[in-house]
């Protein structure tokens, strides 16, 4: 039973990792790309690491895994915030959405 849960967690995590990096590759500007990579990256990594906790089923390892996931959840928003601020202050070219004008009318 626990092997099935592990396998499902690993597969879902792997699929999310690929979706995140496809977003990183295809989306139009830095801030939108960050939206794909930081959130989905944290989710994919958390799922795979949780899968390894289920696989080992050991208290010490579970504590270690919880520490890794907590650390990722704490640091990913801070890192994303700092990159976003750097991107805005660098003045990178942002995406001009062609349909935005139509919505305002």
């Amino acid at each position, binding site marked *: 039973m626990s*092997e*099935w849960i*592990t*396998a*499902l967690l*690993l*597969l879902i*995590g*792997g*699929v999310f*990792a*690929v979706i*995140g*990096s*496809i977003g*990183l*590759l295809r989306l139009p500007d*830095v801030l939108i*790309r*960050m939206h794909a*990579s*930081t959130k989905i*990256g*944290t989710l*994919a*990594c958390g799922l*795979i*690491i949780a*899968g*390894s906790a289920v*696989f*080992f089923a*050991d208290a*010490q*390892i579970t504590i*270690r*895994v919880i*520490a*890794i996931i907590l*650390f*990722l959840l704490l*640091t*990913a928003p*801070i*890192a*994303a915030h*700092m*990159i976003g*601020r*750097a*991107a805005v*202050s*660098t*003045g*990178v*070219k942002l995406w001009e959405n062609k349909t935005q004008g139509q919505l305002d009318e």
Partner: protein
Amino acid sequence: MSQFLSFALEASFALVVLSVVLAFIRLAKGPSLPDRVVALDMMTVAIVAFCGLAAIRYETAAFLDVALVLALVGFLATVALARFAERNTARTKESTNE
């Protein structure tokens, strides 16, 4: 280890490596420095996930320590690069104003 688990393990190894490769393409292409920092951040997170997979594959819990340290170092690298990008542009703006 059941057949389904070992299949899932190999498949997710392939998926995570594919995501590292796609992030690397963005790292090579990225038109600006923040793009590259974002791609590097994504690569670090994917490699942390890879360490989790390796821990299962070789049944060695020590890979999880590697994952923890890699998450820490990756966070520090991202913060340092972001500060570098910000300060660099501030300096060039100052020098063009004078």
